[in-house]
């Protein structure tokens, strides 16, 4: 275990201590104890920055299950470091924010911080693991921790609903992903991502390649809230706002992005990967931004906005993967690399502005008691700091200069425009869709940013709408959004401080082997590109977005605006309910509680299965050669037995059936006599007598009220099944008699029973000597039966007396 390993799991270790801090230091807000760790981790990981920006990687391996190739390998390159810094950096800010957001007195802080640390550790594990199985383990832990955090206020019904939904969707995806990893292992024989990348040439022609890709993508799409799996994210907004800011904007939803970026060297460069990623990405982008416009809740707007931005990043990663197909060359191919670059840049930007926006939304909720934009308004002068931060965040999200969102949006437009010029993957036919959809989505993005801004901060302040006296938030709550807001501005004005420290190493990690030794991707991020299509697109976005906002009155009454919930939710709810109801009705259909039905299933299965196997193996065999001659005695006794058996089946009274059964038993004893088995005959005779007496006893005690002397009701199904069983067993007996493969052991017993055991009665010698062990347990069975009968009767009596 190296320091890097300890750093990865340190949140878990701290989580163990949190309950003690909470219990013994009640005066101090537990968050202060937590705050130290992400801060230390952030500084610790910053130290790796020089290494990774020079293209170096850090990797250490600790064996976990070496026999299965599962090792806890940490692998730190540019991409991992970017995510680690996001997780720890925003983690620090979120913890700081939560200290002021969550009350020390009212909230169960120990739960909150344990879950949050669990999540942080799991997330660090996801981005630092090189081993797919370890990655999966951490991945599922993020799902678990996320669900726990969403249902933090578990007494609210909506919280538990949201938690269950996110759990079901992300775990379904995660499980599919595990399947994909297993397929990768089948193809390559290793779980190590680097090991798999080394064998890319081998696996891309494998038949399992496409299934593995689909399964892995299912995991990534569910986690990153891509269409149509995005429905869990708006419902996850029931979580406390620090959680929404941390998990549902900056880190967990980007785990899918990370996975896609990490596995791009494995799957990238084929049309399926390109089209799935960019197609689902662009659809998610559009769907998310259009849905966000009609939300009335601040966090719901932000949730759909997050969905749409994640779609954007996913789409860019898809477009960027094309560069693996033809390498880092000339235009327009060179611009596909730029798409990857834009994805990474926007990922950083999104984390900054969305984090700050969630925090300001939380502040507004905290200080006014509502998040409904229909109630809010006129907060500009009352909450000036929150207003400023929101303005910066929203302007950046809308893609206005000079903030960082503008830069990444321009790069996105460049990416989609250049993608239409690609000469591969049918892009010349279908590529025109990308710029159009991207532009439409940006218009709606602009519109919801305007709505969010103007509805919250401008207009008339109406104090009657609020339960509490509205005022600016305490400074502690404002620190984190101020820092994030400043970053938005700093990255906006000086984007190139990120260029070769974080973005270039990440791009190099996503697109390896494109560059020669010592080369670097060319990264220049400008504000001003000249008068090109992108600029006019942005102008169009601003004009049309403003138009949409200005005409809001006319379409606010429309069905589109009033219907807030995503229609896919109905599908989800319906299928979940259908599944439950279907399962219930299916179970109640065959689990009738009637013993007769269960016996029918058992016997039908026996008949069908054995019959099928008989037919399949052609096992029926009969030859008369080995049969012994039938004597007259045997025929007569058999006739008696058959008659008695028929009497039992068709008897009108139970007494007749009991007597018939006795007759069958005595005939059997006679058969034993005829077939020279005196011990069996003796025992059968006595046992038959005793059991008949017991049957009579039962008959005598039948309750009077339902005692109707009527014959067995005829049921055709029963007849068929019983005939089937009878025929089958007969066939089985005959066939097995005629296909004996080995001699019987009887010769040994005949010789040995006198010579070795000193007895002439072979049956008895076998019972007590050769196979005494069986007898030992048979008498045990009898003892248990006797004690059972004794207990049943005595305990029943005792109960009646009470």
């Amino acid at each position, binding site marked *: 275990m190296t320091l890097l390993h300890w750093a990865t799991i340190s949140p878990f270790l701290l989580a163990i201590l949190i309950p003690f801090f909470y219990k013994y230091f009640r005066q101090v807000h537990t968050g202060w104890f937590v705050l130290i760790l992400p801060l230390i981790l952030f500084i610790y990981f910053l130290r790796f920055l020089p290494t990774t920006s020079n293209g170096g990687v850090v990797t250490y391996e600790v064996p976990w299950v070496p026999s299965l190739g599962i090792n806890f390998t940490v692998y730190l390159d540019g991409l991992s470091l970017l995510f680690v810094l996001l997780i720890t950096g925003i983690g620090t800010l979120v913890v700081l924010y939560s200290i002021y957001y969550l009350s020390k007195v009212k909230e169960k802080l120990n739960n909150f911080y344990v879950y949050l640390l669990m999540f942080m550790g799991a997330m660090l594990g996801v981005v630092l693991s090189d081993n797919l199985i370890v990655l999966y383990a951490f991945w599922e832990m993020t799902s678990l921790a996320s669900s726990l955090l969403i249902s933090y206020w578990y007494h609210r019904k909506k919280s538990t609903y949201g938690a269950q939904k996110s759990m079901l969707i992300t775990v379904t995806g995660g499980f599919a992903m595990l399947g994909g990893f297993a397929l990768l292992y089948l193809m390559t024989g290793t779980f190590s991502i680097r090991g798999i990348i080394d064998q890319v040439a081998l696996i891309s022609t494998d038949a399992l390649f496409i299934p593995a890709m689909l399964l892995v993508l299912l995991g990534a799409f569910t986690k990153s809230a891509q269409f149509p799996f995005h429905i869990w994210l708006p419902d996850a907004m029931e979580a406390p706002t620090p959680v929404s800011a941390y998990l549902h904007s900056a880190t967990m939803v980007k785990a899918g992005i990370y996975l896609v970026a990490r596995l791009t060297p494995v799957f990238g460069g084929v049309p399926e990967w390109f089209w799935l990623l960019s197609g689902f990405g662009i659809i998610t982008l559009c769907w998310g931004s259009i849905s966000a416009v009609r939300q009335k809740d601040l966090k719901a707007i932000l949730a759909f906005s997050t969905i749409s931005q994640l779609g954007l990043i996913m789409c860019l990663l898809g477009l960027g993967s094309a560069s693996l197909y033809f390498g880092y060359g000339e235009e327009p191919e060179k611009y596909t690399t730029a798409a990857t670059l834009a994805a990474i840049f926007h990922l950083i930007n999104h984390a900054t502005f969305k984090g700050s926006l969630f925090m300001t939304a939380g502040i507004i909720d905290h200080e006014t008691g509502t998040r409904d934009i229909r109630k809010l308004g006129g907060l500009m002068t009352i909450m000036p700091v929150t207003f400023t931060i929101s303005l910066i965040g929203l302007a950046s999200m809308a893609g206005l200069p000079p903030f960082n969102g503008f830069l990444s949006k321009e790069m996105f437009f460049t990416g989609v425009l250049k993608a239409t010029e690609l000469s591969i993957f049918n892009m010349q036919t279908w590529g025109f869709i990308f710029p159009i959809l991207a532009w439409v989505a940006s218009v709606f993005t602009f519109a919801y940013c305007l709505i969010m801004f103007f509805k919250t901060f401008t207009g008339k302040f109406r104090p009657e709408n609020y339960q509490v006296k509205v005022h600016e938030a305490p400074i502690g709550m404002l620190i984190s959004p101020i820092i994030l807001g400043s970053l938005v501005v700093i990255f906006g004005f000086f984007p190139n401080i990120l260029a070769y420290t974080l973005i270039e190493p990440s791009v190099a990690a996503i697109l390896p082997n494109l560059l020669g030794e010592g080369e670097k991707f060319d990264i220049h991020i400008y504000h001003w590109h000249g008068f090109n299509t992108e600029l006019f697109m942005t102008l169009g976005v601003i004009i049309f977005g403003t138009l949409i906002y200005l005409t809001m009155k006319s379409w606010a009454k429309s069905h589109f605006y009033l219907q807030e919930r995503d229609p896919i939710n109905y599908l989800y709810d319906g299928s979940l309910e259908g599944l439950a109801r279907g399962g219930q009705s299916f179970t109640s259909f065959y689990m009738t509680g009637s013993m007769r039905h269960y016996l029918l299933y058992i016997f039908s299965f026996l008949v069908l299965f054995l019959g099928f196997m008989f037919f399949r193996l052609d096992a029926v065999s009969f030859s008369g050669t080995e049969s012994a001659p039938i004597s007259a005695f045997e025929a007569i006794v058999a006739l008696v037995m058959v008659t008695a058996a028929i009497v039992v089946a068709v008897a009108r009274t139970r007494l007749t059936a009991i007597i018939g059964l006795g007759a069958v038993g005595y005939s059997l004893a006679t058969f034993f006599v005829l077939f020279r088995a005196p011990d069996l005959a003796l025992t059968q005779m006595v046992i038959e007598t005793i059991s008949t007496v017991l049957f009579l006893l039962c008959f005598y005690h039948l309750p009077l009220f339902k005692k109707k002397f009527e014959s067995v009701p005829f049921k055709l199904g029963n007849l068929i099944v019983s005939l089937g069983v009878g025929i089958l067993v007969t066939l089985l007996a005959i066939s097995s008699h005629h296909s004996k493969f080995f001699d019987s052991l009887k010769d040994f017993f005949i010789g040995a029973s006198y010579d070795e055991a000193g007895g002439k009665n072979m049956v008895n010698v076998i*019972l007590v000597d050769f196979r005494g062990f069986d007898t030992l347990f048979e008498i045990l069975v009898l003892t248990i039966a006797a004690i059972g009968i004794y207990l049943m009767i005595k305990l029943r009596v005792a109960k009646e007396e009470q």
Partner: protein
Amino acid sequence: MRTNDVILKTVTQLVTFIIIIFSIYVFLSGHHHPGGGFIGGLMTAAAFVLIGLAFDIETVKKIIPIDFKLISATGMLIAVLTGIGSFVFDANFLSHTFDYFHLPLLGETELATAVLFDIGVYLVVIGITLTIIFTIGEDQ
């Protein structure tokens, strides 16, 4: 209820001994002839059941003043100990042996450890039969 079944009771008194002796014979001859612990036990139990029918359960309990369950437990114990006993002679569980001895009155006689095991079976069968039948009988 039974007012006068003197014939039954008298015959029972006679027959019981015959049955018991026969059952012991069947039990002892089991090693060489049809019979053994199981059938012997059943017959002995049948004799007591007959007494129970002709007289009543109290009479049987007077004749066998032991809990019937204890009889089967003793039988189980004997059977298991027979098996464990072979460990003393460094043999496998339930290994049996036999030999011929010259005994007074009986002359040259074969004694087998398997008979010890059979005694266990015999007692268990008597115990369980009487337990079952008389438990149900008392319940009425």
